[in-house]
């Protein structure tokens, strides 16, 4: 677990005063309804959001698609990836694995969300390196909590988010 340089463990509005320092979240879900929901939840919490409808598109956005380079992708700007577990094609778990296998992306926290509370599924995801497993539908309190934790998970490419006063 990386140590944040800030001594404050709770989110304070002062630490995110910088206009372009909004955390950038990549949200992956095959349901348009759920993408719309998570996007609103996140933007209401002052996050910048990019959505993807499946794992393949998510990987392409991160520059991890076949034959791609991370250079022109959003990879260096993403602070958190939230992905649904049950998706056709590539599941959220498979996406998680691919992200953790990438030298450039492996440190980006990945949160898995699912409508089903299956202990073996949860364990599998956490063992593979998921930061958290959350139940759908996500609520404001869930996003507030993630938002707080984001100040601790700073993206090494972006530097520390919380100045800590």
């Amino acid at each position: 677990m990386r140590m944040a340089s800030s001594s404050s463990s709770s989110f304070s509005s002062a630490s995110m005063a910088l206009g372009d320092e909004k955390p950038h979240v990549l949200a992956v879900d095959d349901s348009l309804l759920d993408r719309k929901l998570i996007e609103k939840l996140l933007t209401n919490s002052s996050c910048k959001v990019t959505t993807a409808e499946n794992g393949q598109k998510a990987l392409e956005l991160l520059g991890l698609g076949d034959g791609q380079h991370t250079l022109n992708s959003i990879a260096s700007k993403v602070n958190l990836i939230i992905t649904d577990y049950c998706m056709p094609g590539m599941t959220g778990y498979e996406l998680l694995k691919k992200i953790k296998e990438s030298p450039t992306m492996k440190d980006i926290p990945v949160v898995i969300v699912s409508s089903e509370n299956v202990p073996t599924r949860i364990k599998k995801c956490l063992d593979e390196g998921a930061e958290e497993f959350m139940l759908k539908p996500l609520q404001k309190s869930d996003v507030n909590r993630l938002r707080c934790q984001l100040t601790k998970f700073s993206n090494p490419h972006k530097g520390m988010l919380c100045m800590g006063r």
Partner: protein
Amino acid sequence: MEVGQMQRRLIEYTKSLFMEGILDDQFLQLQQLQDESNPDFVVEVVSLFFQDAEKLLNDITRALDLQSVDFPKVDAHVHQLKGSSASVGAQRVKNGCIAFRNFCEEQNVDGSLRCLQQIKQEYYHVKNKLEALFRLEQQIVAAGGSVPMMELSF
């Protein structure tokens, strides 16, 4: 009817939907997400639910009509419907889906057909109720009033 009366009527109407278990807390979460930057958020999300639900109910109906039912496929559709209904707070539809999945697991065609009927009824019920709710809101706004926020505890 003046604005205050309409607002009270809306609150009572909404409350009744919760009391009857037609809507659950998730619907309130949606309302709380709505703001001036996206004043039609709830209507938009609920419309997506209506679209999803109608397509999925059709798909499920067709799938159950086949000589040899592909239960994993039916289950996948029901899972999606469960997700959408849960996301908007359509509690009875969601609960119907949970029951339905048990029949899918048992590969029980008759049970599935009965469940599907039940879910269709619940869906059209919540659809009517929500459309009535949105109409009430529109009337308030048209009369120059603002839509009251539901309290979380009642």
